[in-house]
């Protein structure tokens, strides 16, 4: 174990605490009466969790790729299932993202949720525990338990507090995600039977045969691609996003979607390296499809939430593209892009929630020309929209730039296609901003005509300002964030390289598909 883990040396078991505090907090909500106290309790618990998670950042050892802050306990000895937690450079940012976004989710539900507050806070806290659990588990069974346990609270968030078509959306969400993960379940058991362990680092170290790798690779990929979501299994996402309450949308966009990308990095690449390299062109092609389709569909939406949901498909396409370029810059760009998407899209959903509370409509046409009436609101809206289209100086610019750089350095064709996605992002976001801020406004305030459109209050400003800090922090100084993932990314690439070397010859022509396509296009162009 010591070769993979650095045991926690803080004076409290930090990772267990991050899971346990929200879980116990959720139990205690059952005994609290009164919406006001419940809100405060939810905020206290999530803030405590956030504060307790900060030592992860300050005490993180940048020089090692081992799993840090690790804890190990026997759990079900006879089946060799252990309770192992740990974080490395890949997961630490996602853990912090989760703990920091959750207080905002409570804040943005402050007045949005009108009924069943007790259940709401309880479910949100269970959700937080499960999400942190997914990112810190180092045992496949533990990972799977958290992965699946998350479905139930999320289902309830959509089904109980959702919009008019919540029934359809929640069941679609549940079925899609679950059917994706049942094969993941078989893969986990199959790997256990082959290797005798559920411990993820040992599974990474094990050399599976090529055909075996292909099977588990596709089992993993199905589960994670649905979660990301990649084209063509993305259809649950717009439905879920549109119907979920604001906090549900924020959780979905900021954290749930990241689990797909995290799964690729934690399972597919290191455990099935040869299969990853072999299948890389297909995954890149699917990612490109996600980028272009997501952007194209977002262009045609009139519902603000739906527009942002489709933009998520496009943005997450950049993440999977970065991952499957399989080089240092691409993977770092992908991880950073995951964090960025969590910040930016989460913020955009909060913006939509705020305006929905005032106008009770998500149509762009009903929410137009807000510039004069809600100046603070539109300032934030523009900041996050620019961030979403990767405007230089904002966080997404750095992530997207890294991914594009990686793709141009590897395959020019892929880079060229991905740029289309970036252009589409500018098109749909600017259209949204133009309509919502200015539209046909004559630039003068007309008193009394839209009195319900009051500007942001202190709570809402604080929520959005917190995220805006990160937009500029990552945008202007991404160094510290990239440095955290440095060692782990290199280690991951080393694992891939080892996996490639261990494979017998015959699987060498990995890039035939992409090179072939590029070649034939070049011929076509030259012929004309």
């Amino acid at each position, binding site marked *: 174990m010591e070769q993979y883990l650095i045991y926690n040396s803080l004076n409290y078991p930090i990772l267990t605490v991050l899971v346990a505090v929200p879980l116990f907090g959720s139990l205690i909500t059952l005994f609290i009466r009164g919406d006001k106290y419940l809100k405060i309790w939810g905020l206290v618990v999530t803030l405590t969790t956030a504060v307790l998670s900060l030592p992860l950042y300050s005490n993180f050892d940048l020089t090692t790729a081992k799993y840090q802050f690790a804890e190990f306990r026997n759990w079900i000895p006879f089946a060799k299932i252990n309770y192992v937690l740990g974080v490395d450079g890949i997961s630490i940012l996602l853990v912090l993202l989760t703990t920091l976004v959750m207080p905002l989710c409570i804040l943005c539900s402050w007045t949005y949720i009108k009924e069943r507050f007790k259940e709401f806070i309880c479910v949100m806290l269970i959700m937080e525990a499960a999400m942190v659990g997914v990112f810190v588990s180092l045992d496949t069974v533990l990972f799977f338990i958290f992965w699946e346990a998350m479905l139930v609270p999320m289902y309830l968030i959509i089904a109980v507090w959702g919009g008019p078509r919540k029934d359809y959306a929640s069941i679609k969400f549940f079925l899609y995600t679950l059917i994706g993960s*049942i094969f993941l379940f078989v893969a986990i*058991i199959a790997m256990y039977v082959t290797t005798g362990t559920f411990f993820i680092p040992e599974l990474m170290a094990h050399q599976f045969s090529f055909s075996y790798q292909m099977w588990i690779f596709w089992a993993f990929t199905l589960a994670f691609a649905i979660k990301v979501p990649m084209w063509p299994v993305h259809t649950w996402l717009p439905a879920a996003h549109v119907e979920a309450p604001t906090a549900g949308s924020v959780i979905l966009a900021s954290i749930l979607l990241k689990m797909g990308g995290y799964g690729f990095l934690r399972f597919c690449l290191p455990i099935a390296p040869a299969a990853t390299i072999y299948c890389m062109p297909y995954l890149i092609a699917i990612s490109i499809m996600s980028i272009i389709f997501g952007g194209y569909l977002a262009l045609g939406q009139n519902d603000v939430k739906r527009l942002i949901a489709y933009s998520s498909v496009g943005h997450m396409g950049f993440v999977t593209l970065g991952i499957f370029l399989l080089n240092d810059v691409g993977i770092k760009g992908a991880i950073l892009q995951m964090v960025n998407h969590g910040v930016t899209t989460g913020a955009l959903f909060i913006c939509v929630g705020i305006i929905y509370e005032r106008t009770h409509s998500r149509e762009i046409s009903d929410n137009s020309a807000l510039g004069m009436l809600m100046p603070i609101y539109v300032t934030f809206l523009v900041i996050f929209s620019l961030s979403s289209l990767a405007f230089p100086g904002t966080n997404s610019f750095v992530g997207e730039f890294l991914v594009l750089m990686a793709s141009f350095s590897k395959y020019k064709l892929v880079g060229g296609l991905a740029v289309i996605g970036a252009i589409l992002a500018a098109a749909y976001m600017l259209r949204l901003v133009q309509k919502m801020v200015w539209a046909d406004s004559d630039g003068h305030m007309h008193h009394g005509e839209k009195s319900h459109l009051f500007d942001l209050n202190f709570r809402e400003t604080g929520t959005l300002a917190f995220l805006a800090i990160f937009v500029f922090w990552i945008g202007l100084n991404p160094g510290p964030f990239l440095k955290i993932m440095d060692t782990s990314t290199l280690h991951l690439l080393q694992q891939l390289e080892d996996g490639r070397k261990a494979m017998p010859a015959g699987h060498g022509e990995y890039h035939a598909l992409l090179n072939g396509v590029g070649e034939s296009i070049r011929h076509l162009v030259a012929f004309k």
Partner: protein
Amino acid sequence: MTLFLPELALLLTAVVFFFASLGKIKGARLQGLGILFSGLAVLISLYSYGMQGSLFFNAYRVDAFSQIFKVIIAFGLFIVIYLGNGLYGIDDVLQPEYFLFLTLSAFGLMVMSSAVELITIILCLEIHSFALFIIIPFRKKGAYRQQMEAGIKYALFGAAASGISLYGISYIFGMTHTTYLADLVKIIPGVILKKPLMLVGLVMLLGGFFYKLALFPMHFWAPDVYEGAANETSGFVATLPKVGAVALLIRLISLAGVDAAQFTWVLMAFAVLSMTFGNLAALVQNDIKRLLAYSSIAHAGYVMVGLLCATEFGYLSGVYYIAGYLLMNLACFFVIYNLAPQGENITFADLSGLYKRSPLLALTLAVGAFGLAGIPPTIGFTGKLFLFTAAIKKGMYGLIILAVINTGIAIFYYLKMVRAAYTSVESQASPLNLKLSTSILGIFFIAIILLLGTFPQGFMSVAREAIAAAM
């Protein structure tokens, strides 16, 4: 004498009910008596765990294996009696008799788990079945007439299934000249691959227990009987006989030895057909009890996956799964039972808005249904994890892929139940006020389904001893 204590405790309970049927005790006091004495039986069977020995010319063996099943059966009976406030679905005058035969039926199952000789096994099976034949038609007269149909179906098919079992025994006896399992286990593995007749005999013998387990191809009674019988009877039929059947199936399947390929193939086909048929049929049901009947057919298939591995781990996971199934199914029946104060059948329409009427019942239903669907961290998930691990260890990938696809299908109808309970319709139905004792039972179900699912180690180490004793 002490070896026989748990059985005596149940017999005592039956006698108490017999005298109660002569008097005028009814309602809550009768139920109190039942809770008291069946609770006593649980304690006694717990106390007698660990005893060993044989009785009745070695036809009856008391070991860790039989004792763990006795505990589960006594406990299941206790829960069935405890389910609600009195018997909603049974006529007042028949209530003592109802409890009497319920207890006798559980007694039959209890002795069955100790029986190690074929004729004894059939006798025990009949004690259990006859008692059940009588109580299935017990139901208040009302808009419901299906209880008669259910009673006749259960009795006729049950008799036929016993007949098939006996016929199978005649083959086995004819070829081996013994009915003792201890002797059979020495003979059968040698001949089962050479003599097809032995395979036929063994499968026919198992048929009687497939009937109890509601495994394909002996499943067809389940939906009609569940629907026709009173809610409390369905809760009993759906759970306890299956536990007894699993105990016997473990004993009988292990007769064939581990390398009986054709035998495994037959069981595999039954398992797959059972889960596929059960899950597909459950998708379109509207009556919740009927839905649970089809779901139980599917679950019989899952349990079979563990048993047909014929390994220690396979049996172990089978025991764990059936114990979990008992709890999760009883949790669902607990909700049905308390939703129907007149003993009527429950449909999806009755479930809607349940979370507003009674949050606790809605949560119990959600935990039970998600458990049956296999969502972690419930006992259903851990059970499936063990079952599938056992099967993959034997290299049965195809079987597991089919089982997993079935799990995916099944999610839909379990989710439909939860969805019905959690959708808010503007229903006029009044809030349900549960009694404290009922609420405690609901919380107990939620807690044990989650806890036993998260910490299976204790149960599994006990079950391992039991399996070791049986093999």
